[in-house]
């Protein structure tokens, strides 16, 4: 809402897109065969593949979603960083080398390497499609979010733009171009995140980060003694035309009954503008009134922002940028440059203003969203439990605690089950290269995740946040430092989306062409035909992703990725692990495990409270399942299914003989 078009950012963006497409067309001639298109001929150097792992994995969710969540809720976003990185331990120690040894082009190749079963190819192909589509949604949402401030275009245009560019990348050169795009993106992302972090630490912390830009200073009134405040309010409520607080405003009698429940004070100023103040009481029972921001949508659909109607050409007014520290230790105004440790310890002793939103309905039917300041101690910001997602771990409800454990389990198990990550093991020459590239991946991804904490906290205190869009925190942090940095970071974020979406579409196209059409339906396809069908599938999947990206535009991208991890961990990991380490695994067991894991996790998500409230717009309490994250139920369920079905189908003499060759 508060972004404006940046020519500089648009030029950098155009250069990045031009280079990416140029590279793809240049590499296109190397991808004529299926081996070249799906696996880059297995000739990618291990170091390049390791950085490409980072480029593939550090998606819009990691960069935009995590930074945004930390900027809005503090440490809770960092929990995702920890979980995402931990998943690479499973990939390196359990999956990497067998995956390279057994597979050829797709995840299904590895799962089916000893059974040669159409059923396994079908189950694994469907699961690859489901996980890839779930993962694609947040990437496309992130793309739309980025293009809004970069080019001043609507969200849907951004989604279509990314979809089109990615389809071109994948169609021209498959895994070859995808790998190099991911390598370039991974390098740029880690390097410029480091530069941005250094800039944040160099700037240090200050109580008025936006003072130099003459940005809006929010009103804070008080302290007012509690006894006096109640007296004033009672007086104002009884005689609404009288002055209420200090002579400048009077209580809005029409709205007071609606607002008082939410501890909000609706007033009419001497300029006849409506304003809303939140009523806060501190530990000493002193009352402060803090100015809120409001977005009112009336019955005609007109958006009135902070009491201001749209401009004459219909453009809504903008909300003010937010995010500042109210009090630093020792009541200083500014710290100057800080070391990473001093940055964290200073923040821990500070008082920080966060923003939360409340939705109300006016008596005349107008819907209003009120964004209010919440003064939060730094020690609360730097521990888990501030965000609605994780607040439950500090409460007494066991469901909330299970939900947290379930999400962390899904993040741990999900990485090594993501088809677009797994197929990267086919692009190197041998198992040693697969291992080394994973180690490089862990180093680069781990470094990036450490930086996310500083980027998110830097954004939280930058005075540049858009309270309506957590996904824009990192680019807006860069803008608060330098317009150049904003241009570069935005362009990198855009390549972040391109790199990840390319990998996802390629994985899904492989599932269609190689697993489903060739493996399941038994179509005899030449190399050329297989590549051609994969390219056609890429176009189709790209279009589906665009539609979903537009439909899910308002959800936090990081949250959506949590879903993809849960489905991947439930559908793919149990079968993969048991195939490698349990000799009695049978073909039927693998099929049942993949299908049960996929269906149960998808069903759980669709019936969960989070989906009820955030997607269907229904009450979370009416959901069918007791907590929202499925992993803690569906991952063990998938394991148990495999064991039970395998034990029931041991009669086939070949299954034992075949499975004895594992690892």
């Amino acid at each position, binding site marked *: 809402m508060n972004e404006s078009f940046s020519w500089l950012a648009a030029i950098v963006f155009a250069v990045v897109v031009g280079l990416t497409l140029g590279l793809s067309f240049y590499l296109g001639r190397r991808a004529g065969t299926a081996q070249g298109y799906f696996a880059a001929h297995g000739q990618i150097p291990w170091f390049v593949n390791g950085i490409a792992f980072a480029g593939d994995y550090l998606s819009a969710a990691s960069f935009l979603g995590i930074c945004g969540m930390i900027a809005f809720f503090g440490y809770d976003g960092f929990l995702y960083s920890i979980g995402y990185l931990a998943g690479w*331990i499973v990939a390196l120690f359990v999956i990497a080398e067998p995956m390279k040894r057994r597979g050829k082009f797709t995840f299904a190749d590895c799962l089916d390497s000893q059974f040669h079963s159409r059923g396994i190819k079908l189950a694994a192909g469907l699961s690859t499609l489901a996980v890839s589509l779930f993962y694609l949604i947040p990437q496309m949402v992130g793309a739309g979010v980025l293009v809004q401030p970069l080019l001043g275009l609507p969200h849907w245009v951004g989604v279509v733009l990314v979809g089109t560019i990615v389809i071109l990348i994948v169609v021209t050169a498959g895994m070859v171009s995808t790998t190099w795009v991911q390598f370039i993106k991974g390098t740029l992302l880690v390097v410029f995140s480091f530069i941005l972090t250094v800039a944040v630490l160099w700037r240090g912390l200050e109580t008025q980060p936006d003072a130099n830009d003459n940005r809006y200073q929010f009103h804070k009134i008080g302290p007012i003694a509690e006894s006096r405040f109640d007296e004033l309010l009672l007086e104002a409520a009884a005689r609404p035309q009288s002055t209420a607080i200090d002579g400048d405003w009077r209580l809005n009698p029409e709205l007071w009954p609606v607002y008082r429940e939410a501890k909000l004070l609706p007033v009419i100023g001497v300029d006849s503008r409506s304003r809303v103040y939140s009523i806060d009481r501190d530990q000493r029972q002193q009352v402060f009134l803090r100015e809120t921001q409001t977005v009112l949508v009336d019955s005609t659909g007109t958006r009135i922002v902070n009491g201001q109607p749209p401009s004459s050409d219909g453009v809504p007014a903008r909300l003010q940028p937010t995010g500042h520290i109210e009090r630093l230790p020792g009541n200083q105004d500014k710290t100057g440059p800080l070391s990473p440790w001093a940055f964290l310890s200073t923040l821990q002793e500070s008082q920080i203003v966060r923003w939360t939103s409340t939705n109300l309905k006016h008596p005349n039917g107008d819907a209003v969203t009120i964004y209010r300041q919440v003064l939060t101690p730094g020690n609360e910001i*730097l521990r888990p439990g501030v965000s609605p997602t994780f607040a439950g771990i500090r409460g007494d409800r066991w469901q909330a605690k299970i939900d947290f454990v379930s999400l962390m389990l899904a993040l741990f198990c999900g990485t090594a089950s993501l088809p677009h990550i797994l197929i990267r093991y086919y692009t190197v020459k041998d198992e040693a290269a697969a291992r080394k590239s994973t180690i490089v991946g862990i180093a680069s991804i781990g470094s990036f995740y450490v930086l996310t904490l500083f980027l998110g906290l830097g954004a939280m205190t930058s005075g540049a946040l858009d309270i309506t869009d957590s996904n824009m925190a990192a680019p807006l942090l860069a803008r608060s430092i330098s317009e150049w940095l904003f241009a570069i970071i935005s362009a990198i974020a855009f390549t972040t989306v391109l790199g990840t979406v390319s990998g996802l579409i390629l994985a899904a196209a492989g599932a269609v062409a190689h697993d489903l059409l060739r493996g399941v339906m038994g179509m005899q396809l030449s190399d050329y035909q297989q590549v051609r069908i994969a390219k056609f599938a890429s176009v189709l999947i790209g279009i589906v992703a665009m539609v979903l990206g537009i439909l899910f535009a308002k959800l936090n991208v990081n949250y959506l990725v949590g879903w993809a991890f849960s489905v991947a961990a439930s559908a793919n990991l149990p079968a993969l692990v048991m195939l490698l380490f349990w000799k009695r695994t049978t073909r039927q067991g693998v099929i049942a495990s993949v299908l049960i894991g996929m269906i149960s996790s998808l069903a759980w998500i669709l019936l969960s409270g989070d989906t009820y409230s955030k997607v269907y717009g229904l009450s979370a309490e009416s959901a069918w399942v007791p907590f929202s994250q499925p992993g803690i139920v569906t991952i063990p369920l998938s394991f148990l299914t495999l064991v039970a079905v395998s034990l029931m189908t041991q009669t086939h003499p070949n299954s034992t003989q075949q499975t004895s060759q594992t690892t």
Partner: protein
Amino acid sequence: MNRNARIGLVLFAVYTVVYGGFVVLNAVAPTSMDWSPWLGINLSIWYGFFLIGLAFALAMLYGWLCRIEVSKPEQRSS
């Protein structure tokens, strides 16, 4: 099961215990994360950094241990 797989499983178990400890501590005793043991920074930050650092350290250790196995046949053939 080959040597690399055995080493991998041991290191995996080590990391799983440390990661599991973090998750369980947060779920069961979340107030323990408020404790600031060093440099005025609380346990949740230290534990998070430790998990990221440990992942890298174990990955390097794994790479080093597995390299020994690869180098043996090469030494014999030379």
